[in-house]
């Protein structure tokens, strides 16, 4: 096995396998230094490089060739070299460029978050909140498209799309028989199901999960509820479809399962793809084996309505045994 190579990202050292991209090396470090990614999806081959939000500065190319790279590079595409030094949050140039990219992504985005089903779990919303400016300098009409139904379960609202191409790769790689692609070019480009032919495939529902914005939404969930009012629960079932993992998140409102999605990790990527039967048809609690409440990031708006202890109760704090039990239960440190 080849030797591991050393990289420094924002002053933090890590050793990774050769061939790792800067973004994945940063994800191994975790925390602040991970560049945001709107189009890269580790489970989809060929994705990435398009949105340009993950741009970073390479201030030292490698041990052998210490010259810095002349331009900012897309960290999801650039492989690490031994001794490479990368600046992400520490470089004002990167932050400035990223702010520019966020602005570009938003100029043709309708900003209809109040009526968008994705609000609360939207990558673009999070990105704009963290890296964008408060106002817009764009004073022209935004592009508009009509809503298109892709089959009876999925709706495409192209106006919201940021053309990350993730759904195209999903259609290409996860479903069999691709009927999904990009039409036209420039800012007139649009996602198409090849002349509006509906996607009819067992795995087509995954395009909803990979969509970073609210362009592809679940018609069985549309306008049912805000995500932060629902309660996510991990569950699984033995799916008849051999390609489907059957591991899902059920989103409850009271006793009712409002929707079923794949399990998304902290970077908004599903752990495994699920089939349409699991996603759209199994909406009763007794279809599933419940595993327990879904852990949601503290920063997410979804966790804001759940009972979370900010501080340990004094009685727990004094008793190490209770403390241990508590930590086991919540799978995380409570301060």
């Amino acid at each position, binding site marked *: 096995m080849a030797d591991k190579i050393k990289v420094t990202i924002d002053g933090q050292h890590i050793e990774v396998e050769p061939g790792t991209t800067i973004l994945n090396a940063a994800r191994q470090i975790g925390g602040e230094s991970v560049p945001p990614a709107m189009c890269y999806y580790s489970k989809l081959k060929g994705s990435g490089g*398009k949105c340009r939000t993950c741009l970073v500065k390479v201030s030292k190319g490698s041990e052998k060739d210490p010259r810095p790279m002349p331009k900012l590079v897309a960290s999801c595409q650039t492989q690490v070299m031994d001794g490479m030094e990368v600046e992400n949050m520490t470089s004002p140039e990167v932050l400035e460029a990223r702010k*520019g990219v966020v602005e570009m992504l938003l100029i043709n985005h309708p900003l209809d978050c109040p009526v968008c089903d994705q609000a609360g779990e939207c990558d673009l919303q999070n990105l704009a909140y963290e890296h964008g400016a408060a106002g817009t300098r764009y004073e022209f009409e935004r592009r508009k498209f009509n809503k298109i139904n892709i089959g009876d379960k999925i709706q495409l609202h192209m106006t919201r799309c940021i053309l990350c191409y993730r759904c195209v790769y999903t259609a290409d790689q996860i479903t069999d028989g691709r009927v999904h692609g990009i039409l036209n070019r420039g*800012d007139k480009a649009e996602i198409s199901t090849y002349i509006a032919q509906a996607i009819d495939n067992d795995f087509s529902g995954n395009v909803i999960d990979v969509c970073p914005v609210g362009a592809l939404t679940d018609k069985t969930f549309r306008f049912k509820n805000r995500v932060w009012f629902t309660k996510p629960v991990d569950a699984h079932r033995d799916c008849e479809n051999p390609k489907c993992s059957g591991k899902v998140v059920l989103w409850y409102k009271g006793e009712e399962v409002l929707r079923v999605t794949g399990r998304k990790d902290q970077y908004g990527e599903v752990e495994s793809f699920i089939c349409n039967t699991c996603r759209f048809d199994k909406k009763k609690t007794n279809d599933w084996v419940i595993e327990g409440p879904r852990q949601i990031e503290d920063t997410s708006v979804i966790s804001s309505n759940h009972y979370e202890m900010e501080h340990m109760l004094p009685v727990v704090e004094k008793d190490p045994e209770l403390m241990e039990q508590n930590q086991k239960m919540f799978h995380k440190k409570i301060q």
Partner: protein
Amino acid sequence: MAGKKILLEHIDVPGINTYEVYRKMGGYRSVEKAIKSMSPDDVVEEVKKSGLRGRGGAGFPTGMKWSFLAKPEGRPRYLVCNADESEPGTFKDRYLMEKIPHALIEGMITSSYALGANTSYIYIRGEYFYVLRILEKAIAEAYANGFLGKNILGSGYDLDLYVHPGAGAYICGEETALLESLEGKRGNPRIKPPFPAVAGLYACPTVVNNVETIAAVAPIVNMGGDEYAKIGVGRSTGTKLISAGGHLNRPGVYEIELGVPVEEFIYSDEYCGGIKNGKKLKAVVAGGSSVPILPANLILKTANNEQRLMSYESLADGGFVSGTMLGSGGFIAFDEDSCIVRNTWNFARFYHHESCGQCSPCREGTGWMEKILHRLEYGHGKMSDIDLLVDVSKKIEGNTICPLGDAAAWPVASAIRHFRDEFEWHVNEPKLCLERNYGISQKHEVVM
């Protein structure tokens, strides 16, 4: 400097587009010389010695590009000629292919031999369909005379040459988008690395060169690299085809020896013969629409008050602050009455239309710039728009997958850098501007 002609030497010979006449004028000698007396590496070495630089715009040394070509065992290599000439202001390749198609084909055979390619492609712009017919006829003639096909000149070297038309997208002139398009896919630029020299067409090592670059290989092999390097000035060797357009007395395609002073090129009777109607020169776009525009004083003399020459180095003197690029040689001159804002808007509109839409800064930014420029041009602009334009162009430049983003940003940024007063005039005196540009009376209110 008398005009030394290499590529267009026999342009006036009647019937030069046919095989017989071209052969009689010394055509296909380079193929014979290369295949019979040189090894492929010898040819690459001659090209390296010649100092030939890419004629498509970037000006990268061709010999070096060729030597980067990976040569793995058991996998084919390809040579692709980029004839997708769509840069506004550039029309030299069309002229060459239309008039002397065999010059390109001879260059293709010699270059393919040097690179060890047994299949080569000419990717031609869709709008040049009639040129495609000319090329196909010429290729058929070359096949009939044993310069293409199996066992060329009894040497055991095989080469098949195909012409493939694009579908009318500027972006397919970008080499990786061209390869995608050639493979039958949507013409989106690829993310580099890998570079085409390692994984290009059908994931095999590929060299993509401009028409003029490939055509120049034949005379280099004929006269030898050292001899070719004597032509020109400094590291800008050889001759270059310049497509001169705009407000010139004699627009057209000129073959110049690199190093001709810009002033001589514009004003001498041998070349463009001065500005039309005796007007004054206002500005020049020296290398196709993508390169920064320069005002008359900076195009004739550099910032150090030296004479500016038509060469890669001299035009780039001063960086982007006071210089430009030779680019593809699309030389556009503007007279004193032309409107820089209108012209910049026109370019911005082009890049907006041609952006592939793959990466966000270019997809959204080109449209945004076009809209702001449109507003300025039609008298609805604000003073803050000018700085906004500069800022947007900076946000695009360098942050995109392919150079189209840069190409869209440079003309806008340079126009504002050198002609800021004219932009301000558009904001302050919108009615005067409209009257000058469109002859609309001052009383008339224009509704956008």
